């Protein structure tokens, strides 16, 4: 996946986890938690979805890497480079 496809995949995951949120105005540099009603359980869901969709394990020590959209993309792109996008 390219970084743009990774970004799209993360958006898909967040849309599934928080269906009431309007993600159209997302700001990539602002903490996800500060833009949307996401709590620690939602972040756990993101981790579980990454494992389910891409067989990717995010160690607990790396959870802070998921704080903004741009940090997610930066962290995940090299780890997902051999994957095809999953719809």
């Amino acid at each position: 996946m390219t970084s743009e496809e990774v970004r799209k995949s993360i958006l898909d995951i967040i849309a599934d986890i928080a269906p009431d949120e309007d993600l159209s105005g997302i700001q990539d540099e602002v903490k996800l938690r500060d833009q949307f009603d996401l709590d620690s359980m939602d972040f756990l869901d993101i981790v579980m979805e990454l494992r389910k969709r891409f067989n990717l394990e995010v160690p607990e020590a790396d959870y802070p890497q998921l704080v903004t959209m741009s940090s997610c993309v930066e962290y995940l792109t090299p780890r997902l480079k051999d994957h095809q996008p999953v719809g």
Partner: protein
Amino acid sequence: MPKNWLKGVNSAYDTIIIGSGLGGMTAGNLLAKLGHRVLILEHHYNFGGLATWFKRKGGHILDISLHGFPIGMIKTCRKYWSKEVADSIVRLKNIRFDNPQFSFGTTFDKEDFTQLMRDRFGVLRETVDDFFTTVRGMNFFDDLSMTTRDLFEKFFPGRNDIHRLLMEPITYANGSTLNDPAITYGIVFSNFMDKGVYTFKGGTDQLIKKMKKELKKNGVDVRNHCLVDKILIEDKVVKGVRVNGREIYSDAVLSNSNILSTINKLAGREHFSPGFLEEVSKVRLNDSSCQVYIGIRKGETIPNVGDLLFTSEEEEFTSEALLEPRTKSRTFSFYYPETRPGLNQYAIVSSTNARYSDWADLDETEYMRKKDELVKETLDCLEKYVPDVRSKIDHLEASTPTTFKRYTRHPGGVSFGTKFEGLKVSKDLPGQIAGLFHAGSVGIIMSGWLGAANYGVIVANEVDKFLRSVRKPEEKLEIVNV
């Protein structure tokens, strides 16, 4: 021949879950949705653990767990159960306090509490705001040496009335006291203050029915009357369980039983390291409960006196007084016909916190006498709010810590799991025995409706990770592609 409750059960599963409390069921449902084969074994004839109910003659359905939880439960049910379960959650708007220090109704949210603390208790707005900001910001990694008492004394020194307002409902919700770490209070209290108190429309029986339907839809094998007496372990690796005299195999076992019985009885202490057992020995069980179940005769009505009523005749608030066998403090849960649409009947459940040791060693006569005394004192108290209630009752019974022990098999009949240190032991269990997990009421914050369900999710994530790590690559692929 006794009935074979295990008829049709497979010889092996990915995960076997011992106990069907909210944590066990929520973990089971999530693991099944993630593609794992799950078996849930429950010893009781009902599912739900303490989220359960019973029926009695006269059309009565009586719920066990106090019917109030924070709004977070809606999100949790929607994500890990179904929209149908989440949509059955409704707000309880009339929470009442009545004690020698104050008497009023509240919607039990931040806005109303802020106003009450300013207008009724004369606290400065900025102190209230500062308090709310502090408790909202508390998290798991904070300093543990500060107790809830320290927290209250810092913001409201010497104000026993305010301490009562802030502490009493949470004590009934999860058994925490002024002596427990302040973070356990802050996390739970903030959850409630977010948007108030909620319950399931239709009652616990309907909730569990919906959850069971969902479990079956997702392929979970659920069985009751099935008592697990041993977790099978070889060379520090889980192999399965022994249940009703039969062995069933699995890569992972998730115990939703009490953490101490999981280690000491189901697994066996011989499998754990001395250092770990040292930690285990420090885990304090939390308290238990007494309840009085009051069924109002069909056709009779009672006035609306609130959904939850926290009542006390104690002049001052102490955590200890709530536990006394003849406590003058109790919570009444009122179930009006709207709670169970179609039933058109009223029920009231009184809850008090209690110590197992006060009830366990009584002889039969003394036990019955104390139970009668509990019922009588409960009705005397209730009559102040519902005049002439005795003439409207056609079912009355009481439960004590020994009743809770019989139905949950928890040591000490605990209804609130363990104190804070139990959480670490629960989380460290898989490090001792590969494939052994625990999700159940521990550490106060993982207690209550929301805490139990969310802890089930947190542990299910660990089980999923483990199961994927032990599978052969081709099996892994197969699951991923489904």
